[in-house]
Protein backbone atom coordinates (compact mmCIF):
# COMPACT_ATOMS: atom_id res chain seq x y z
CA UNK A 1 0.00 0.00 0.00
CA UNK A 2 2.13 2.83 -1.25
CA UNK A 3 2.03 6.42 -0.14
CA UNK A 4 -1.00 8.41 -1.01
CA UNK A 5 -0.90 12.13 -1.18
CA UNK A 6 -4.16 13.21 0.33
CA UNK A 7 -5.85 16.52 0.35
CA UNK A 8 -3.45 18.10 -2.13
CA UNK A 9 -6.11 18.85 -4.68
CA UNK A 10 -9.18 18.87 -2.52
CA UNK A 11 -11.23 21.90 -3.52
CA UNK A 12 -7.99 23.73 -4.28
CA UNK A 13 -7.56 24.48 -0.59
CA UNK A 14 -4.38 25.72 0.94
CA UNK A 15 -4.26 22.62 3.20
CA UNK A 16 -1.59 20.53 1.53
CA UNK A 17 -0.94 17.89 4.12
CA UNK A 18 0.93 14.82 2.93
CA UNK A 19 -0.67 11.86 4.61
CA UNK A 20 0.86 8.44 4.37
CA UNK A 21 -1.74 5.75 4.15
CA UNK A 22 -0.85 3.03 6.62
CA UNK A 23 0.05 -0.39 5.29
CA UNK A 24 -2.74 -2.78 6.22
CA UNK A 25 -1.52 -5.81 4.31
CA UNK A 26 -0.97 -9.09 6.08
CA UNK A 27 0.16 -12.53 5.07
CA UNK A 28 -1.84 -15.35 6.58
CA UNK A 29 -1.05 -18.94 5.87
CA UNK A 30 0.79 -17.84 2.75
CA UNK A 31 -2.17 -15.82 1.56
CA UNK A 32 -1.32 -12.20 0.80
CA UNK A 33 -4.22 -10.01 1.82
CA UNK A 34 -4.67 -6.25 1.29
CA UNK A 35 -5.90 -5.93 4.80
CA UNK A 36 -6.74 -8.20 7.73
CA UNK A 37 -10.49 -8.06 7.23
CA UNK A 38 -12.15 -11.24 6.03
CA UNK A 39 -15.74 -12.38 6.05
CA UNK A 40 -16.83 -15.24 8.29
CA UNK A 41 -18.24 -18.38 6.76
CA UNK A 42 -22.00 -18.64 6.63
CA UNK A 43 -22.59 -14.95 7.16
CA UNK A 44 -21.65 -13.74 3.70
CA UNK A 45 -23.56 -16.20 1.56
CA UNK A 46 -21.68 -16.98 -1.62
CA UNK A 47 -20.27 -13.45 -1.64
CA UNK A 48 -22.39 -12.05 -4.46
CA UNK A 49 -25.22 -11.24 -2.09
CA UNK A 50 -23.17 -8.36 -0.70
CA UNK A 51 -22.02 -6.93 -4.04
CA UNK A 52 -24.88 -4.37 -4.08
CA UNK A 53 -23.74 -3.02 -0.72
CA UNK A 54 -19.95 -2.97 -0.78
CA UNK A 55 -17.08 -3.14 -3.22
CA UNK A 56 -15.93 -6.71 -2.75
CA UNK A 57 -12.50 -5.75 -4.09
CA UNK A 58 -11.82 -3.93 -0.86
CA UNK A 59 -11.92 -7.03 1.34
CA UNK A 60 -8.82 -8.80 2.56
CA UNK A 61 -10.47 -12.12 1.81
CA UNK A 62 -13.89 -13.62 1.39
CA UNK A 63 -14.70 -16.81 3.24
CA UNK A 64 -17.84 -18.41 1.90
CA UNK A 65 -20.64 -20.53 3.28
CA UNK A 66 -19.45 -23.99 4.37
CA UNK A 67 -19.31 -26.48 1.50
CA UNK A 68 -19.64 -30.22 1.59
CA UNK A 69 -18.92 -32.74 -1.12
CA UNK A 70 -22.63 -33.11 -1.85
CA UNK A 71 -25.47 -30.59 -1.49
CA UNK A 72 -27.13 -30.40 1.94
CA UNK A 73 -30.67 -29.43 2.66
CA UNK A 74 -30.01 -28.12 6.15
CA UNK A 75 -32.29 -28.02 9.18
CA UNK A 76 -36.01 -27.31 9.20
CA UNK A 77 -37.13 -23.83 10.26
CA UNK A 78 -37.15 -21.94 12.56
CA UNK A 79 -33.40 -21.76 12.10
CA UNK A 80 -32.50 -18.55 13.87
CA UNK A 81 -33.52 -16.49 16.82
CA UNK A 82 -32.28 -13.38 18.45
CA UNK A 83 -30.78 -13.35 21.95
CA UNK A 84 -29.41 -10.44 23.99
CA UNK A 85 -26.64 -8.94 21.82
CA UNK A 86 -26.48 -12.16 19.88
CA UNK A 87 -28.28 -14.68 17.77
CA UNK A 88 -28.63 -18.42 17.67
CA UNK A 89 -28.48 -20.28 14.38
CA UNK A 90 -29.02 -23.85 13.40
CA UNK A 91 -28.91 -23.57 9.63
CA UNK A 92 -27.67 -27.12 9.47
CA UNK A 93 -24.94 -26.32 6.97
CA UNK A 94 -27.30 -26.00 4.01
CA UNK A 95 -25.20 -25.63 0.87
CA UNK A 96 -25.29 -26.36 -2.84
CA UNK A 97 -22.31 -28.72 -2.72
CA UNK A 98 -18.76 -28.21 -3.93
CA UNK A 99 -19.37 -29.11 -7.59
CA UNK A 100 -22.32 -26.76 -8.00
CA UNK A 101 -20.34 -24.07 -6.24
CA UNK A 102 -17.49 -24.35 -8.72
CA UNK A 103 -19.89 -24.25 -11.65
CA UNK A 104 -22.42 -21.64 -10.54
CA UNK A 105 -20.83 -19.34 -8.00
CA UNK A 106 -17.07 -19.34 -8.42
CA UNK A 107 -17.14 -17.79 -11.92
CA UNK A 108 -18.96 -14.78 -10.50
CA UNK A 109 -16.32 -14.37 -7.82
CA UNK A 110 -13.23 -14.74 -9.97
CA UNK A 111 -13.57 -11.26 -11.37
CA UNK A 112 -13.00 -9.69 -7.96
CA UNK A 113 -9.54 -8.74 -6.80
CA UNK A 114 -9.74 -10.39 -3.42
CA UNK A 115 -8.82 -13.75 -2.00
CA UNK A 116 -11.45 -16.48 -2.03
CA UNK A 117 -11.25 -18.94 0.82
CA UNK A 118 -13.59 -21.88 1.00
CA UNK A 119 -14.92 -23.18 4.26
CA UNK A 120 -15.40 -26.96 4.12
CA UNK A 121 -16.91 -29.65 6.28
CA UNK A 122 -18.11 -33.23 6.24
CA UNK A 123 -19.91 -35.83 8.30
CA UNK A 124 -16.92 -38.13 8.29
CA UNK A 125 -13.22 -37.95 7.54
CA UNK A 126 -13.63 -39.37 4.02
CA UNK A 127 -16.20 -36.65 3.29
CA UNK A 128 -13.84 -33.94 4.49
CA UNK A 129 -11.13 -35.38 2.28
CA UNK A 130 -13.50 -35.60 -0.66
CA UNK A 131 -14.54 -31.97 -0.57
CA UNK A 132 -10.93 -30.86 -0.10
CA UNK A 133 -9.94 -32.88 -3.14
CA UNK A 134 -12.75 -31.47 -5.25
CA UNK A 135 -11.65 -27.93 -4.45
CA UNK A 136 -7.90 -28.51 -4.65
CA UNK A 137 -6.25 -26.80 -7.63
CA UNK A 138 -9.44 -25.14 -8.80
CA UNK A 139 -8.61 -21.77 -10.29
CA UNK A 140 -9.69 -18.87 -8.11
CA UNK A 141 -9.55 -20.65 -4.79
CA UNK A 142 -6.80 -19.33 -2.55
CA UNK A 143 -7.21 -21.44 0.52
CA UNK A 144 -9.39 -23.72 2.56
CA UNK A 145 -10.81 -23.25 6.02
CA UNK A 146 -11.81 -26.48 7.73
CA UNK A 147 -14.83 -26.25 9.98
CA UNK A 148 -14.32 -28.92 12.61
CA UNK A 149 -17.40 -27.96 14.65
CA UNK A 150 -19.37 -30.71 12.94
CA UNK A 151 -20.70 -33.94 14.39
CA UNK A 152 -18.77 -37.01 13.34
CA UNK A 153 -21.53 -39.28 12.12
CA UNK A 154 -19.21 -42.31 12.12
CA UNK A 155 -18.45 -41.76 15.80
CA UNK A 156 -21.91 -41.33 17.21
CA UNK A 157 -22.23 -37.66 16.44
CA UNK A 158 -19.41 -36.44 18.62
CA UNK A 159 -18.11 -33.14 17.35
CA UNK A 160 -14.72 -33.44 15.58
CA UNK A 161 -13.44 -30.22 17.06
CA UNK A 162 -14.06 -31.06 20.69
CA UNK A 163 -12.06 -34.27 20.80
CA UNK A 164 -8.28 -34.02 20.43
CA UNK A 165 -7.92 -37.36 18.67
CA UNK A 166 -10.60 -36.88 16.01
CA UNK A 167 -9.56 -33.27 15.53
CA UNK A 168 -6.04 -34.36 14.79
CA UNK A 169 -7.22 -37.10 12.46
CA UNK A 170 -9.48 -34.94 10.35
CA UNK A 171 -6.96 -32.10 10.09
CA UNK A 172 -4.14 -34.43 9.10
CA UNK A 173 -6.31 -36.18 6.53
CA UNK A 174 -7.33 -32.90 4.90
CA UNK A 175 -3.76 -31.63 5.06
CA UNK A 176 -2.68 -34.65 3.04
CA UNK A 177 -5.49 -34.16 0.55
CA UNK A 178 -4.64 -30.65 -0.58
CA UNK A 179 -1.72 -28.38 -1.19
CA UNK A 180 -3.79 -25.25 -0.63
CA UNK A 181 -3.12 -23.07 2.41
CA UNK A 182 -5.14 -24.58 5.22
CA UNK A 183 -6.89 -22.80 8.08
CA UNK A 184 -8.31 -24.85 10.93
CA UNK A 185 -11.45 -23.24 12.31
CA UNK A 186 -11.69 -24.14 15.97
CA UNK A 187 -14.70 -24.82 18.12
CA UNK A 188 -14.92 -22.77 21.33
CA UNK A 189 -16.93 -25.44 23.13
CA UNK A 190 -13.84 -26.92 24.72
CA UNK A 191 -12.10 -26.72 28.06
CA UNK A 192 -8.76 -25.63 26.67
CA UNK A 193 -8.57 -23.90 23.30
CA UNK A 194 -4.76 -24.05 23.22
CA UNK A 195 -4.86 -27.84 22.99
CA UNK A 196 -6.72 -27.57 19.72
CA UNK A 197 -4.65 -24.71 18.38
CA UNK A 198 -1.57 -26.82 18.94
CA UNK A 199 -3.18 -29.83 17.29
CA UNK A 200 -3.87 -27.70 14.24
CA UNK A 201 -0.28 -26.52 14.17
CA UNK A 202 1.04 -30.04 14.59
CA UNK A 203 -1.27 -31.33 11.85
CA UNK A 204 0.36 -28.97 9.39
CA UNK A 205 -2.35 -26.35 9.19
CA UNK A 206 -1.08 -22.93 8.15
CA UNK A 207 -3.33 -20.94 10.44
CA UNK A 208 -6.14 -21.28 12.94
CA UNK A 209 -9.32 -19.24 12.96
CA UNK A 210 -11.49 -18.91 16.03
CA UNK A 211 -14.06 -18.87 17.37
CA UNK A 212 -16.92 -20.72 15.78
CA UNK A 213 -20.23 -20.34 17.60
CA UNK A 214 -20.87 -21.25 21.23
CA UNK A 215 -23.52 -23.91 21.67
CA UNK A 216 -26.68 -22.33 23.03
CA UNK A 217 -30.41 -22.66 23.39
CA UNK A 218 -33.54 -20.57 23.84
CA UNK A 219 -37.13 -21.47 24.66
CA UNK A 220 -40.38 -19.76 23.72
CA UNK A 221 -42.23 -19.74 27.04
CA UNK A 222 -45.55 -19.20 25.31
CA UNK A 223 -45.40 -22.40 23.26
CA UNK A 224 -42.88 -24.04 25.62
CA UNK A 225 -40.95 -25.16 22.56
CA UNK A 226 -37.32 -24.47 21.78
CA UNK A 227 -36.95 -21.38 19.59
CA UNK A 228 -35.04 -23.47 17.06
CA UNK A 229 -36.40 -26.60 15.42
CA UNK A 230 -32.97 -28.11 16.01
CA UNK A 231 -33.35 -27.41 19.80
CA UNK A 232 -29.80 -26.06 20.19
CA UNK A 233 -27.88 -23.71 17.93
CA UNK A 234 -24.74 -21.67 17.63
CA UNK A 235 -24.46 -18.38 19.47
CA UNK A 236 -22.79 -15.54 17.58
CA UNK A 237 -22.62 -11.77 17.76
CA UNK A 238 -21.34 -9.22 20.29
CA UNK A 239 -22.49 -11.37 23.22
CA UNK A 240 -19.64 -13.81 22.57
CA UNK A 241 -16.91 -11.26 21.95
CA UNK A 242 -15.31 -11.43 25.41
CA UNK A 243 -15.06 -15.22 25.19
CA UNK A 244 -13.68 -15.06 21.66
CA UNK A 245 -11.12 -12.43 22.57
CA UNK A 246 -9.91 -14.47 25.53
CA UNK A 247 -9.52 -17.57 23.37
CA UNK A 248 -7.72 -15.69 20.60
CA UNK A 249 -5.35 -14.27 23.18
CA UNK A 250 -4.68 -17.74 24.62
CA UNK A 251 -4.26 -19.34 21.19
CA UNK A 252 -1.93 -16.58 19.96
CA UNK A 253 0.41 -17.28 22.83
CA UNK A 254 0.26 -21.03 22.30
CA UNK A 255 1.11 -21.40 18.60
CA UNK A 256 3.41 -19.88 16.03
CA UNK A 257 1.04 -20.15 13.07
CA UNK A 258 -1.15 -17.09 12.54
CA UNK A 259 -4.37 -16.77 14.44
CA UNK A 260 -7.47 -15.29 12.84
CA UNK A 261 -9.86 -13.70 15.32
CA UNK A 262 -13.61 -14.18 15.00
CA UNK A 263 -16.53 -13.52 17.29
CA UNK A 264 -18.82 -10.56 17.76
CA UNK A 265 -16.75 -8.07 15.81
CA UNK A 266 -19.08 -5.21 14.89
CA UNK A 267 -16.76 -2.24 14.61
CA UNK A 268 -13.16 -1.32 13.91
CA UNK A 269 -12.66 -0.93 17.66
CA UNK A 270 -13.68 -4.54 18.17
CA UNK A 271 -11.37 -5.69 15.39
CA UNK A 272 -8.47 -3.74 16.89
CA UNK A 273 -8.99 -5.50 20.22
CA UNK A 274 -8.50 -8.82 18.45
CA UNK A 275 -5.40 -7.59 16.61
CA UNK A 276 -3.94 -6.27 19.86
CA UNK A 277 -4.27 -9.64 21.59
CA UNK A 278 -2.50 -11.36 18.73
CA UNK A 279 -4.87 -12.01 15.83
CA UNK A 280 -3.18 -11.38 12.49
CA UNK A 281 -6.51 -11.08 10.74
CA UNK A 282 -10.16 -10.97 11.70
CA UNK A 283 -13.37 -12.35 10.31
CA UNK A 284 -16.63 -10.46 10.36
CA UNK A 285 -19.75 -12.58 10.79
CA UNK A 286 -23.06 -11.56 12.29
CA UNK A 287 -22.15 -7.89 11.83
CA UNK A 288 -22.79 -8.28 8.09
CA UNK A 289 -26.45 -8.93 8.81
CA UNK A 290 -26.81 -5.87 10.98
CA UNK A 291 -24.76 -3.63 8.74
CA UNK A 292 -24.01 -4.87 5.21
CA UNK A 293 -21.11 -2.43 4.93
CA UNK A 294 -19.56 -3.59 8.21
CA UNK A 295 -16.43 -5.07 6.60
CA UNK A 296 -15.54 -1.94 4.68
CA UNK A 297 -16.39 0.31 7.63
CA UNK A 298 -14.02 -1.78 9.73
CA UNK A 299 -11.20 -1.55 7.20
CA UNK A 300 -11.58 2.22 7.17
CA UNK A 301 -11.76 2.36 10.93
CA UNK A 302 -8.57 0.40 11.39
CA UNK A 303 -6.85 2.70 8.94
CA UNK A 304 -8.01 5.72 10.90
CA UNK A 305 -6.86 4.23 14.18
CA UNK A 306 -3.39 3.65 12.77
CA UNK A 307 -3.21 7.13 11.30
CA UNK A 308 -4.42 8.72 14.50
CA UNK A 309 -1.78 6.84 16.44
CA UNK A 310 0.96 7.68 13.92
CA UNK A 311 1.45 4.07 12.97
CA UNK A 312 2.34 3.18 9.42
CA UNK A 313 1.89 -0.57 9.51
CA UNK A 314 -0.81 -2.86 10.84
CA UNK A 315 1.92 -5.07 12.28
CA UNK A 316 2.63 -2.34 14.79
CA UNK A 317 -0.54 -3.23 16.66
CA UNK A 318 -0.73 -6.99 16.18
CA UNK A 319 -0.06 -8.66 19.52
CA UNK A 320 0.79 -5.35 21.15
CA UNK A 321 -1.60 -5.50 24.06
CA UNK A 322 0.14 -4.01 27.10
CA UNK A 323 0.05 -6.51 29.91
Amino acid sequence: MGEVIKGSRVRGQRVRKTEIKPDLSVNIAGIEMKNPVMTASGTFGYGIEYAPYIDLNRLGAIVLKGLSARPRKGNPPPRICETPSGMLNAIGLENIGAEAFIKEKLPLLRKYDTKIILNIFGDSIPEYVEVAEILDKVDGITGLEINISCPNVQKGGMVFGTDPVTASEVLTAVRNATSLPLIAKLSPNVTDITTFAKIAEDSGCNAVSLINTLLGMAVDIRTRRPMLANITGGLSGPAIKPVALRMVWQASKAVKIPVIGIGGIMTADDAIEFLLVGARAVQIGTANFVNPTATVDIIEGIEKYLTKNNLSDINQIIGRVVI
Partner: protein
Amino acid sequence: MKAEILSHLNLTGPYYKLKLYSPHIYKNAMPGQFAMLRVGETSDPLLRRPFSIHKKNPDKTIEILYKIVGKGTRLLSTLVKGKDMDIIGPLGNGFVIDKKIKNHILIAGGIGIAPLLFLAHELSRDKRSRITLFLGARHKEDILCIQNFKRLKARINISTEDGSLGKQGLISELFEVSLADLNEQKIAVYSCGPNNMLREIHRLAAAKGLPCQVSLEARMGCGIGACLGCVVEGKEGYEKVCTDGPVFDAGEVEWGRL
Protein backbone atom coordinates in the same frame (compact mmCIF):
# COMPACT_ATOMS: atom_id res chain seq x y z
CA MET B 1 -28.94 3.76 4.03
CA LYS B 2 -30.25 6.71 6.02
CA ALA B 3 -33.78 7.99 5.68
CA GLU B 4 -35.07 10.92 7.68
CA ILE B 5 -38.11 10.32 9.83
CA LEU B 6 -40.67 12.88 8.63
CA SER B 7 -43.44 11.77 10.91
CA HIS B 8 -44.14 9.00 13.36
CA LEU B 9 -47.71 8.62 14.50
CA ASN B 10 -49.41 6.37 16.99
CA LEU B 11 -52.64 5.41 15.21
CA THR B 12 -54.61 3.36 17.71
CA GLY B 13 -53.36 1.08 20.46
CA PRO B 14 -50.18 -0.66 19.37
CA TYR B 15 -50.28 0.58 15.77
CA TYR B 16 -47.86 3.14 14.39
CA LYS B 17 -47.21 4.79 11.08
CA LEU B 18 -43.73 5.89 10.14
CA LYS B 19 -43.05 8.23 7.24
CA LEU B 20 -39.53 8.26 5.85
CA TYR B 21 -37.86 10.36 3.20
CA SER B 22 -36.24 7.84 0.88
CA PRO B 23 -35.96 8.69 -2.81
CA HIS B 24 -34.19 5.37 -3.40
CA ILE B 25 -36.93 3.19 -1.98
CA TYR B 26 -39.60 5.44 -3.44
CA LYS B 27 -38.12 4.93 -6.86
CA ASN B 28 -37.58 1.20 -6.69
CA ALA B 29 -40.16 -0.34 -4.41
CA MET B 30 -42.89 -2.64 -5.71
CA PRO B 31 -45.90 -3.77 -3.67
CA GLY B 32 -45.04 -6.71 -1.42
CA GLN B 33 -41.42 -5.75 -1.06
CA PHE B 34 -40.02 -4.97 2.34
CA ALA B 35 -37.24 -3.09 4.08
CA MET B 36 -34.97 -3.99 6.98
CA LEU B 37 -34.96 -1.39 9.74
CA ARG B 38 -32.44 -0.93 12.50
CA VAL B 39 -34.58 -0.20 15.52
CA GLY B 40 -31.84 0.76 17.99
CA GLU B 41 -28.24 1.81 18.07
CA THR B 42 -26.82 -0.68 20.54
CA SER B 43 -26.41 -4.41 20.15
CA ASP B 44 -29.66 -5.27 21.91
CA PRO B 45 -31.79 -5.69 19.90
CA LEU B 46 -29.13 -6.86 17.49
CA LEU B 47 -30.82 -7.74 14.23
CA ARG B 48 -32.73 -5.53 11.85
CA ARG B 49 -36.48 -6.00 11.66
CA PRO B 50 -38.36 -6.55 8.39
CA PHE B 51 -41.34 -4.34 7.51
CA SER B 52 -43.39 -4.17 4.35
CA ILE B 53 -43.53 -1.01 2.31
CA HIS B 54 -46.98 0.25 3.17
CA LYS B 55 -47.26 3.26 0.89
CA LYS B 56 -45.28 5.50 -1.44
CA ASN B 57 -45.97 9.20 -1.79
CA PRO B 58 -45.07 11.54 -4.66
CA ASP B 59 -42.85 13.57 -2.30
CA LYS B 60 -40.42 10.63 -2.35
CA THR B 61 -41.48 9.42 1.03
CA ILE B 62 -42.48 5.92 2.00
CA GLU B 63 -44.62 4.75 4.85
CA ILE B 64 -44.33 1.79 7.18
CA LEU B 65 -47.34 0.60 9.15
CA TYR B 66 -46.45 -1.51 12.12
CA LYS B 67 -47.66 -3.02 15.33
CA ILE B 68 -45.74 -3.23 18.59
CA VAL B 69 -45.31 -6.91 19.37
CA GLY B 70 -41.99 -7.12 21.18
CA LYS B 71 -38.74 -5.48 22.12
CA GLY B 72 -37.76 -4.30 18.67
CA THR B 73 -41.04 -2.73 17.66
CA ARG B 74 -41.33 -1.11 21.09
CA LEU B 75 -37.94 0.51 20.63
CA LEU B 76 -38.83 1.51 17.08
CA SER B 77 -41.86 3.35 18.40
CA THR B 78 -39.63 5.64 20.49
CA LEU B 79 -37.72 7.05 17.52
CA VAL B 80 -38.66 10.63 16.95
CA LYS B 81 -39.30 12.83 13.95
CA GLY B 82 -36.19 14.44 12.54
CA LYS B 83 -33.89 11.53 13.29
CA ASP B 84 -32.40 9.35 10.60
CA MET B 85 -33.65 5.83 10.23
CA ASP B 86 -31.12 3.20 9.20
CA ILE B 87 -32.91 1.22 6.50
CA ILE B 88 -32.11 -1.27 3.74
CA GLY B 89 -34.51 -1.76 0.88
CA PRO B 90 -36.48 -2.39 -1.13
CA LEU B 91 -35.89 -6.11 -0.69
CA GLY B 92 -37.45 -9.33 -1.89
CA ASN B 93 -39.98 -10.13 -4.56
CA GLY B 94 -43.30 -8.36 -4.48
CA PHE B 95 -46.71 -9.33 -5.80
CA VAL B 96 -46.90 -10.22 -9.47
CA ILE B 97 -49.64 -8.24 -11.18
CA ASP B 98 -51.19 -9.98 -14.14
CA LYS B 99 -52.29 -7.16 -16.43
CA LYS B 100 -55.00 -9.32 -17.93
CA ILE B 101 -56.83 -9.68 -14.66
CA LYS B 102 -59.11 -6.83 -13.61
CA ASN B 103 -60.73 -8.34 -10.55
CA HIS B 104 -58.52 -8.35 -7.50
CA ILE B 105 -59.32 -9.77 -4.11
CA LEU B 106 -57.05 -8.62 -1.30
CA ILE B 107 -57.32 -10.49 1.96
CA ALA B 108 -55.62 -9.31 5.12
CA GLY B 109 -55.44 -10.51 8.68
CA GLY B 110 -54.60 -7.78 11.18
CA ILE B 111 -51.35 -5.99 10.44
CA GLY B 112 -51.21 -8.05 7.22
CA ILE B 113 -52.99 -5.07 5.71
CA ALA B 114 -49.64 -3.24 5.57
CA PRO B 115 -48.37 -4.40 2.15
CA LEU B 116 -51.86 -4.65 0.67
CA LEU B 117 -52.51 -0.92 0.65
CA PHE B 118 -49.45 -0.36 -1.51
CA LEU B 119 -50.69 -3.18 -3.74
CA ALA B 120 -54.14 -1.62 -3.98
CA HIS B 121 -52.64 1.70 -5.01
CA GLU B 122 -50.62 0.00 -7.68
CA LEU B 123 -53.59 -2.00 -8.95
CA SER B 124 -55.81 1.07 -9.05
CA ARG B 125 -53.48 2.75 -11.51
CA ASP B 126 -55.33 0.62 -14.03
CA LYS B 127 -58.68 2.41 -14.06
CA ARG B 128 -60.52 -0.79 -14.95
CA SER B 129 -59.34 -2.59 -11.80
CA ARG B 130 -61.97 -3.64 -9.35
CA ILE B 131 -60.56 -4.17 -5.87
CA THR B 132 -62.29 -6.11 -3.17
CA LEU B 133 -60.82 -6.07 0.30
CA PHE B 134 -61.41 -8.68 2.96
CA LEU B 135 -60.03 -7.51 6.25
CA GLY B 136 -60.22 -9.50 9.43
CA ALA B 137 -58.87 -8.89 12.90
CA ARG B 138 -59.54 -9.61 16.53
CA HIS B 139 -61.25 -6.38 17.60
CA LYS B 140 -62.40 -3.30 15.77
CA GLU B 141 -59.29 -1.45 17.03
CA ASP B 142 -57.20 -3.79 14.90
CA ILE B 143 -59.00 -2.82 11.70
CA LEU B 144 -56.77 -0.33 9.91
CA CYS B 145 -56.63 1.60 6.64
CA ILE B 146 -60.32 1.46 5.85
CA GLN B 147 -60.39 5.12 4.76
CA ASN B 148 -57.50 4.54 2.38
CA PHE B 149 -59.25 1.66 0.71
CA LYS B 150 -62.48 3.62 0.49
CA ARG B 151 -60.63 6.34 -1.35
CA LEU B 152 -59.50 3.71 -3.83
CA LYS B 153 -63.16 2.71 -4.26
CA ALA B 154 -62.51 -0.79 -3.04
CA ARG B 155 -65.42 -2.95 -1.97
CA ILE B 156 -64.76 -3.63 1.68
CA ASN B 157 -65.65 -6.67 3.77
CA ILE B 158 -64.76 -6.69 7.42
CA SER B 159 -64.88 -9.32 10.10
CA THR B 160 -63.74 -9.30 13.69
CA GLU B 161 -63.39 -12.25 16.02
CA ASP B 162 -65.43 -10.53 18.70
CA GLY B 163 -67.94 -9.00 16.31
CA SER B 164 -67.05 -5.47 17.36
CA LEU B 165 -66.95 -4.43 13.71
CA GLY B 166 -68.31 -6.10 10.58
CA LYS B 167 -69.22 -9.73 10.60
CA GLN B 168 -68.28 -11.83 13.61
CA GLY B 169 -65.84 -14.61 12.76
CA LEU B 170 -62.73 -15.24 10.72
CA ILE B 171 -62.06 -13.39 7.51
CA SER B 172 -61.50 -16.67 5.70
CA GLU B 173 -65.09 -17.60 6.53
CA LEU B 174 -66.33 -14.36 5.03
CA PHE B 175 -64.20 -14.99 1.97
CA GLU B 176 -65.59 -18.52 1.68
CA VAL B 177 -69.14 -17.26 1.73
CA SER B 178 -68.42 -14.73 -0.98
CA LEU B 179 -66.74 -17.38 -3.10
CA ALA B 180 -69.99 -19.31 -3.18
CA ASP B 181 -71.68 -16.63 -5.32
CA LEU B 182 -68.67 -16.17 -7.49
CA ASN B 183 -68.98 -16.84 -11.20
CA GLU B 184 -66.34 -14.55 -12.59
CA GLN B 185 -63.18 -16.41 -13.60
CA LYS B 186 -60.57 -13.73 -14.08
CA ILE B 187 -59.82 -13.04 -10.47
CA ALA B 188 -56.56 -12.90 -8.57
CA VAL B 189 -56.23 -13.32 -4.84
CA TYR B 190 -53.50 -11.66 -2.77
CA SER B 191 -53.19 -12.29 0.91
CA CYS B 192 -51.11 -11.39 3.94
CA GLY B 193 -51.68 -12.41 7.53
CA PRO B 194 -51.08 -15.20 10.01
CA ASN B 195 -50.04 -18.57 8.58
CA ASN B 196 -53.24 -20.33 9.60
CA MET B 197 -55.28 -17.77 7.75
CA LEU B 198 -53.10 -17.97 4.65
CA ARG B 199 -53.34 -21.74 4.62
CA GLU B 200 -57.11 -21.48 4.63
CA ILE B 201 -57.20 -18.79 1.94
CA HIS B 202 -54.95 -20.93 -0.22
CA ARG B 203 -57.23 -23.91 0.23
CA LEU B 204 -60.32 -21.91 -0.70
CA ALA B 205 -58.73 -20.18 -3.67
CA ALA B 206 -57.20 -23.41 -4.97
CA ALA B 207 -60.57 -25.14 -4.76
CA LYS B 208 -61.96 -22.45 -7.05
CA GLY B 209 -58.91 -22.50 -9.27
CA LEU B 210 -58.06 -18.89 -8.50
CA PRO B 211 -54.45 -17.73 -8.65
CA CYS B 212 -53.38 -16.82 -5.15
CA GLN B 213 -50.29 -15.06 -3.90
CA VAL B 214 -49.36 -14.94 -0.24
CA SER B 215 -46.87 -12.80 1.62
CA LEU B 216 -45.10 -14.89 4.27
CA GLU B 217 -43.30 -13.96 7.44
CA ALA B 218 -40.19 -15.52 8.91
CA ARG B 219 -37.54 -14.55 11.40
CA MET B 220 -34.84 -12.89 9.36
CA GLY B 221 -31.14 -12.56 9.94
CA CYS B 222 -29.94 -10.61 6.93
CA GLY B 223 -32.89 -9.98 4.61
CA ILE B 224 -30.66 -10.39 1.56
CA GLY B 225 -30.24 -14.13 1.10
CA ALA B 226 -26.93 -14.54 2.90
CA CYS B 227 -27.73 -16.28 6.17
CA LEU B 228 -30.27 -18.93 5.10
CA GLY B 229 -32.11 -18.24 8.32
CA CYS B 230 -35.54 -17.42 6.91
CA VAL B 231 -36.43 -20.51 4.90
CA VAL B 232 -39.85 -22.07 4.55
CA GLU B 233 -40.49 -25.44 3.02
CA GLY B 234 -41.58 -25.16 -0.59
CA LYS B 235 -42.58 -27.82 -3.06
CA GLU B 236 -39.01 -27.92 -4.33
CA GLY B 237 -37.08 -27.67 -1.10
CA TYR B 238 -36.41 -24.72 1.16
CA GLU B 239 -37.20 -21.26 -0.13
CA LYS B 240 -35.77 -18.10 1.37
CA VAL B 241 -38.55 -15.79 2.45
CA CYS B 242 -36.27 -12.77 1.99
CA THR B 243 -35.12 -13.30 -1.59
CA ASP B 244 -37.37 -16.01 -3.02
CA GLY B 245 -40.32 -14.26 -1.32
CA PRO B 246 -41.75 -12.78 0.79
CA VAL B 247 -44.53 -13.13 -1.80
CA PHE B 248 -45.01 -16.69 -3.00
CA ASP B 249 -47.46 -18.34 -5.27
CA ALA B 250 -49.60 -20.16 -2.71
CA GLY B 251 -49.24 -23.36 -4.67
CA GLU B 252 -45.48 -23.40 -4.17
CA VAL B 253 -45.68 -23.54 -0.39
CA GLU B 254 -45.64 -26.79 1.61
CA TRP B 255 -48.55 -25.71 3.80
CA GLY B 256 -48.30 -28.80 5.97
CA ARG B 257 -44.85 -27.73 7.14
CA LEU B 258 -45.64 -24.13 7.94
